């Protein structure tokens, strides 16, 4: 193959990679939106909005299947190397993680439906701040993937600690609300579940961040908690 042929072929492959990246971006944006909508439904005690969120999860699942199929086809046909190989293998992992984010959004929406029928908890403590940090991590992890920004990805990983601490704090806060207001036990339990799902979303955003670092720098940072990510000791008691 002459260099000119090679460059032409490569441009077509670049186009295919770009289309895949756009699909992944669409999937990630959908998942992020789902989390935001589910959290809004929790806040506004809106069971209908929650149900709409639950109904839309199928779109994310369909995107996951499409991304998986395209990625496998590209691996087979292009036999990618180096950066392209890392991108495609990580695309498979990232799409699986984003699909899980979608599932957690559904869990939160289900909590929202139950919360809409329960007596409210007077004080939700750090839950709003936790939601803000977790969704911010997700948004930035996606941005880091799009922009191949390893620094931003590292920053996402470092925020996971904070979410774990909020999770502990919400857990304790809800226990205390249950003691003070037995009528709010049902709602407080649901809030604990919302917090647990947010904590999981933050974990998945951290995974995305680690995957982006691998794509960009070919460095595996996973399980080297001291370097980039929080230590796992601080995981919430609820995280069983």
């Amino acid at each position: 193959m002459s260099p000119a042929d090679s460059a032409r072929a490569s441009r077509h492959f670049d186009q295919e990679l770009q289309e895949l990246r756009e699909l992944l971006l669409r999937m990630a944006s959908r998942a992020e939106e789902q989390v935001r909508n589910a959290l809004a439904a929790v806040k506004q005690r809106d069971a209908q909005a929650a149900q709409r969120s639950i109904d839309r999860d199928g779109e994310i699942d369909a995107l996951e299947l499409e991304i998986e199929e395209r990625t496998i086809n590209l691996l087979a046909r292009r036999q990618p190397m180096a950066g392209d190989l890392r991108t495609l293998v990580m695309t498979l992992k990232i799409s699986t993680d984003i699909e899980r984010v979608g599932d957690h959004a559904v869990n939160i929406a289900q909590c929202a439906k139950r919360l809409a029928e329960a007596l409210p908890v007077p004080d939700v403590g750090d839950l709003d701040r936790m939601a803000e940090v977790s969704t911010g991590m997700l948004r930035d992890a996606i941005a880091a993937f799009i922009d191949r920004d390893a620094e931003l990805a590292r920053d996402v990983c470092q925020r996971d600690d904070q979410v774990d601490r909020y999770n502990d704090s919400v857990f304790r806060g809800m226990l205390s609300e249950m003691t003070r207001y037995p009528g709010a036990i049902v709602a407080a339990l649901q809030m604990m579940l919302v917090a647990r799902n947010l904590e999981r979303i933050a974990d998945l955003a951290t995974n995305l961040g680690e995957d982006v670092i691998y794509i960009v720098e070919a460095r595996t940072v996973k399980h080297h908690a001291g370097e980039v990510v929080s230590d796992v000791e601080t995981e919430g008691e609820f995280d069983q």
Partner: protein
Amino acid sequence: MPTIRVSANGEAALETRDVRVRYGNNEAIKGITMEIPRKRVVALIGPSGCGKSTLLRCFNRMNDLVPSAAVTGEVLFHGENLYADHVDPVEVRRRIGMVFQKPNPFPKSIYDNVAFGPRLYGRPPDLDDIVERSLRQAALWDEVKDRMNDNALGLSGGQQQRLCIARALAVTPEILLMDEPASALDPIASAKIEELIQQLVEHYTIVIVTHNMQQAARVSHYTAYLYIGELIEYDDTNTIFTAPHEKHTEDYVTGRFG
């Protein structure tokens, strides 16, 4: 500066020091220093004209046969410079064999092809054993044992190439140099050569030049990327194909070169 991370730790089968090759005024190899570890497969890759075949030919003085080629620097084999005055190039080529892109059996019988080298170096009494052992090592014995007197040119391309490998093995070399040994073969014959390379490396050191990057990735332990006569990067094959350190290597292995 090139990235060279392969160190044979004293177990080098070959070592080059600032090897340069000139064809007239054109410098085809511009000072390459590298080690080829013993009983490992090293792949030389790079675009056409990068010097990979020229470098390969330095390893057993095949460039001597090109009148305009001038080699400087050292190629050390058992601590001795192959280009030293007293070294006999014929003996070099016995101990460092070569297999070419196009199978080139002699128009003789299968037996005579393999027996050719041993006969040249004296008539060993166990010639039949040498022929059988070499054909077995080249994974050809079962296919030809009943027709040893047939003309070698009647074999398929893949069989001819394995015959050439058997012919090289018959003179008990330590190193096998392979210049695109599978590029003229169909995928099945090519796969057999690759399988054979992985068996041979238990006993031999192999340096292979290939245009086929997937082939380099499949068969080699180490890969050297050359560009216009320079060694750009030389590292273990996993690193070269998953996370090369040099941008130029990355561009080549991902097909963005040019």
